[in-house]
């Protein structure tokens, strides 16, 4: 859909997902790395456990569908080349420290002098202004300052971090939304603008009901381990249930929303011989989560837990699908690759990596369009892979390129 758009992607791992999203939507995204390669290529793991900047799986995951060039934008010549590229571009995305681009004359005002319609996105840990703007980040630090960390973990233990970095993904996805809103405006007016994305804010944006619970009840939602807090006056509801060979997640939800799933589960338990009279006689439509007592909750959790424990996760998912019971088995990575639904929807894509002599299975597409292919089509670029292709497009000769390479500019 965006095949007429060009994106200059200067980000490191803080912003990869923005360019990746636009690339999947069809934009020509040019990943610009410093000569020698982006430091984020050092992020592990690596293909076949061989540490190598051309084998970083993190790099692969979020830079597929992008072309790649090398350029030292801190050198005078490099800066001029970058400005030439800006003339051909619609978007510039970057994740340098707050003033870095301004110091190079490449802040939004500098870029808009070159190209009035340019849309710039800056992704920083905390935002370009404000008391935390110069704070150093790490995913655990940002997730802690966003509120997510505090609420995750055992009730009697410390907060627990999601060990896969998340804040950069919230920010990258938000940046994609921000630049698209700016793009819509530009298509109406011809004017670009600057999108300022903070990882902290993007991660803090969704906190379920924690903020209104604080505002209305002066109650801080606390960590509840395997339970879900904040839905009832007095009790938490178990979410994580051991099953015969692992774990399944299931939520007791009140009112008509939960009734369908709960009554289907009870029917299933009845057929299986595991239902109690209490469960069978329950009026799930009028079951109220807010006022449920601990005693009632126990009468539900006991037999339901027993039922889950006596089945495998595969049996539980297999039975849940036709009955419409909302059970989520905890998928391993292997389970995901074999998941029936993902397979049938052709979610996985095999992407060729000729240098590795193989193809690799990738998450294939975040949306299916009836008009346009939005899937992962080609692997992430090697260091400087498209230098010749891109630089000759803006009028540099092969001789120029040799010189630029010798002087370390590309």
């Amino acid at each position, binding site marked *: 859909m965006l095949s007429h758009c060009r994106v200059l992607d200067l980000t490191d791992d803080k912003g990869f997902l923005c360019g990746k999203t636009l690339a999947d939507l069809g934009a020509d995204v040019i990943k610009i790395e410093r000569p020698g390669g982006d430091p984020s290529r050092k992020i592990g793991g690596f293909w076949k456990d061989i540490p190598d900047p051309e084998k970083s799986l993190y790099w692969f995951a979020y830079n597929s569908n992008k072309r790649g060039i090398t350029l030292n934008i801190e050198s005078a010549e490099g800066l001029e080349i970058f400005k030439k590229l800006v003339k051909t571009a619609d978007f510039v995305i970057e994740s340098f420290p707050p003033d870095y681009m301004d110091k190079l004359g490449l802040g939004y005002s500098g870029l808009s002098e070159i190209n009035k319609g340019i849309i710039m996105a800056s992704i920083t840990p905390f935002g370009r202004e404000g008391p935390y703007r110069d704070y150093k980040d790490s995913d655990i630090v940002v997730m802690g300052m966003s509120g997510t960390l505090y609420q995750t973990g055992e009730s009697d233990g410390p907060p627990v971090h999601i060990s896969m970095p998340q804040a950069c993904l919230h920010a990258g996805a938000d940046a994609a939304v921000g630049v698209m809103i700016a793009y819509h405006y530009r298509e109406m007016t011809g*004017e670009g603008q600057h999108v300022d994305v903070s990882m902290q804010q993007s991660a803090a944006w969704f906190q379920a009901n924690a903020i209104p619970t604080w505002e209305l009840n002066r109650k801080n939602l606390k960590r509840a381990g395997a339970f879900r807090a904040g839905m009832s006056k007095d009790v938490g509801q178990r979410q994580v249930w051991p099953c015969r060979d692992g774990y399944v997640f299931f939520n007791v939800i009140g009112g008509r929303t939960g009734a369908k799933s709960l009554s289907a589960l009870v029917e299933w338990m009845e057929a299986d011989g595991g239902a109690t009279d209490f469960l069978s006689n329950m009026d799930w439509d009028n079951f109220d989560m807010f006022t449920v007592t601990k005693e009632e909750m126990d009468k539900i959790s006991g037999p339901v837990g027993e039922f889950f424990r006596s089945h495998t996760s595969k049996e539980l998912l297999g039975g849940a699908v036709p009955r419409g019971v909302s059970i*989520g088995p905890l998928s391993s990575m292997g389970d995901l690759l074999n998941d029936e639904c993902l397979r049938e929807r052709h979610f996985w894509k095999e992407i060729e990596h000729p240098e590795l002599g193989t193809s690799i299975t990738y998450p294939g597409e975040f949306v299916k*369009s009836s008009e346009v292919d939005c899937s992962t089509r080609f692997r992430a670029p090697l260091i400087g892979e498209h230098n010749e292709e891109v630089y000759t497009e803006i009028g540099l000769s092969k001789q120029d390129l040799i010189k630029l390479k010798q002087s370390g500019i590309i």
Partner: protein
Amino acid sequence: MEMNKREGVFSGLTILAFCWAVVGPLTMKFFADHGATVIRVETSKRPCTMRSSAPYKDNVPNYNKGGYFNYYNSNILSLSLNMQLPEAREIAKRLAVECDVFMENYTPGNMEKWGLGYEELKKLRTDIIMMRQSGYGSWGPYKNLPAFGMVLVPIAGLPNFIGWPGKEPLPVGVSAYTDCISPRFATATLIAALDYRRKTGKGQLLDLSQFETALYFLSPAILEHVSSGREPERIGNSSPDAAPHGVYPCQGDDRWCTIAVSDDEEWVNLCREMGRPEYAEDQRYKTFINRKKNEDELNGIIGAWTSQLAAEDVMERLQAVGVPAGVVKSAADVFDDPQLNKRNIYWPMEHSEMGMFTHLGQSFQLSKTPSKAYSPSPLLGEHTEYICTELLGMPDEEFIDLMQKGVFE
């Protein structure tokens, strides 16, 4: 269709939305916050699950006084329609045809049941843009499986990355965590689809699965499995790339601070700030490899220091010497966070049933066209009359007649 125009990037754009839970409104908010007229169809026969979710104003369950719902639905208009009735379905069709975008995230099958499937809508308007955003996709083997974020989190594999070695996997404490993932992808895609229609005249069907978008937040882990065949292990608060790396106890009840040291320079600075410069020279901790090896011991040393201090002090002192550290913020802390408030993440607005109530605001800043708090979250059906009579131009008599038939319940 005459619209009550709001200023903003999407001024004049109208969206008809059958939203459910959080995914729907979060997607629509991006548009509504920038001036679009978003018409959300609801019914008192079966109000959105968020309307019957805690917390409530004054602790009394009430569809219009739910903090969960009202936090996420500012700027959106509510049209009440009892879709069991053919007249209601007709109104929905009229709106679908006149709106720029049709969005829904109901369990697949509902739209078809009401004659609002893509093929039918396309017959009424050839260039319609329809966004479907169900849990597992609008087609495929799980299409009938009711989806909640709480269940999508495990099925997408996230709890494999949350918890302590050898202990049970944990949910993300912010429950229904995946609810904030697909709205971003959906919004970027919808804006691209609007552009595509402007340029080609073609509409389209967009089918998004919350399950699939959630996997985009785990892509590197999936590739690691493809590469090595290994499954992830729960590693608590440690990191393969940094040590020390964790959450440390501070003074006070349930107060914590994170610290993440990813290179030797940060380590030296941390030692100095702890008043223990000798550790910087200690062979046991001098290199990353040794720090990682002696991590438990190290965490004990740091914890002993942090527990003497307020979390804010640890953060400020370490950040001042270039060591990444931050207060583990509770909801109360986040609510008062100076950085987030400066960036307008919250919009306090007067709500007729809630009184002054904080609505969720923006997640990023646009320099020329900032998002705006136009209106508080709607009461159920608050804009029904306005939408029917003003926007659709329905004569008053017809409106009253339909009302008496229960069409607007």
